[in-house]
């Protein structure tokens, strides 16, 4: 359940990343045809697994989910920046 929650949220974050307007502008990519409403749906969907785990009173799973998604989101944002030295 926890692993599924993490992967689902990461999938939503990846969708948000792919169509992020500022990221696309900064990389010179054409604007994505993704309405704001859809982005909000993805955002709520990304948070849903955490809410479900919290409602099940699974504090450990909530923290592992939150931390995994924080790391995953950071790693997702690194995609397509290879070639630049991070430090």
């Amino acid at each position, binding site marked *: 359940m926890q692993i599924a929650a993490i992967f689902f949220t990461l999938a939503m974050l990846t969708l948000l990343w792919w169509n992020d307007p500022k990221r696309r502008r900064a*990389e010179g990519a054409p604007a994505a045809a993704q309405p704001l409403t859809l982005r909000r749906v993805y955002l709520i969907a990304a948070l849903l697994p955490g809410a479900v785990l919290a409602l099940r009173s699974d504090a450990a799973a909530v923290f592992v989910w939150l*931390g995994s998604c924080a790391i995953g989101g950071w790693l997702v944002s690194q995609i397509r920046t290879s070639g630049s*030295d991070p430090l």
Partner: protein
Amino acid sequence: MIRLPRQETKLMVAIHGWSGIVLGLLLYAVVLTGMTAVFAKEINTWSSGHVAQKSAFERPIDDSLQALAARTPAEFHEAVDVFEIADGNLGLFFHLHEAAPSGEVIERGVYYEVDSAGDVVREKRGIGEEVFGPSNDDALSHFLIDTHVQLHVPEPWGLLLTGILGLAMLVAAVSGLLIHRHLFKDIFTLRRKASPVLVNRDRHSVAGTWSLPFAFILAFTGSFFSFYGTVGVPIVAMAAFGGDEQAFDDAVSVKPEKPDSRPHLTGTVNQIIADARARTGALPTFVLVERFGRADAQVTTYQDPEPGSIEPLTLVYNGATGAYERTTPSIGAKPSLGGTLTAIMEPLHFGNFAGVASKAVWYGLGFAMCYVTLTGLRLWLVRRRESIPTLAWLERAVTVIGFGLPLALLTAAVGFLCAVPLGSAVVWTPAAFLIGSAISIVAGVALPTHALLVTVHKFAIGGLLLGLPLIRLATGGPGWTSALMARQPMIVAIDIALILSGVWLLIRMITAQRSDNTAPVSLQPAE
């Protein structure tokens, strides 16, 4: 995200920048060693080279306890700490509590280490600080933890220093949140082909945004731990008990309802551990025997949290009869808000509430926070690079510490592995750390260009990462087959992690394109 007036924004930027540049390098040292210390127990298993098949708590303990009690002065039977140490050995600390001249409550007694055959391999008398020093087998993990907790500065100054660094991190996290107007809009934006200021700013803010909640949690819990014993307990004890810290300890711990000092054999620990295991599904992580040899003896077993919870479990038993009495909070006799808040500080800081899964997440977040700290320092320097050329020394210092500290930790591991068979790891682990640090500092002074300094450090780190598993094997450590047969997959896992990290770093270096960041740098207001 939060719209502050311009003046306040400028002030927050100044506070964020200056707290970072003044304390950032020390904070980086604390966070890096903390990140590594998350896996201190696993690093201990990996580095000590022993492959104990059974936990010490799976073996009978009562005979050892009785034999050691017979040779220990009765004054030290007030309490006995029982815990597992390297290679499945058992540590037993018979002690009493007394007030030091400063008023602080200290533990004084006799510490024994007992091997799987029941033989005493080490005996030491003194107070807690003295007897729990590093041994040959755990010198590396001990060194990591001591660096993180107090930067090897003597108590209480080291704890106060790390406590202040925790508050600085708290300030940086909150001020960073307040000054970043488009926190979520910028969360995926990492510009590559932009000025050095924007490139570093993006790296810093993206990593900082993603790790912000945990930066707050770790800063807050870290400063709690640092200030708890040094400042907090003395002050609250002064207010509530006229300065009597023993009275504070007594108030927060569970005492017997009716003291009964009649002699009674305390020979039930084996039975108690078995019962605790049956109730919780796991062996204890720590056992405390209080009032050993008395009719009112109490045995408390400390367990990992139940699945789904982050609060550790504490089971209380009658030491004379072995009967289970209750499951109690770590603090206080009944569940309470204060007890729960205090009890969750440790799992939230150590990340040890869900086994390897939570530790891995906390390790990753620690890495993100190291990255945030270093990119923040780089950002501060890059903004001022052209207008203040004399800051070149600071840029080098950031690189020397940023890369030199991981390098020195790796040389400490090399020193440990080479010295363990010789029995001198306690000396050579910190010595190797200092040697690695010195090499890094000399390189920082001697190498002609900053780019070369970075390259040399990265090659050295990559080489050591790849070499450590080989050094471990060459110095007598178990091979992968032996480790797996002894049910110690962590030895293999850490070897693989080191090899993959080394390969990744070296490949990145070989294929990295140096970006030509020649865009003009302009100062921002109030920075």
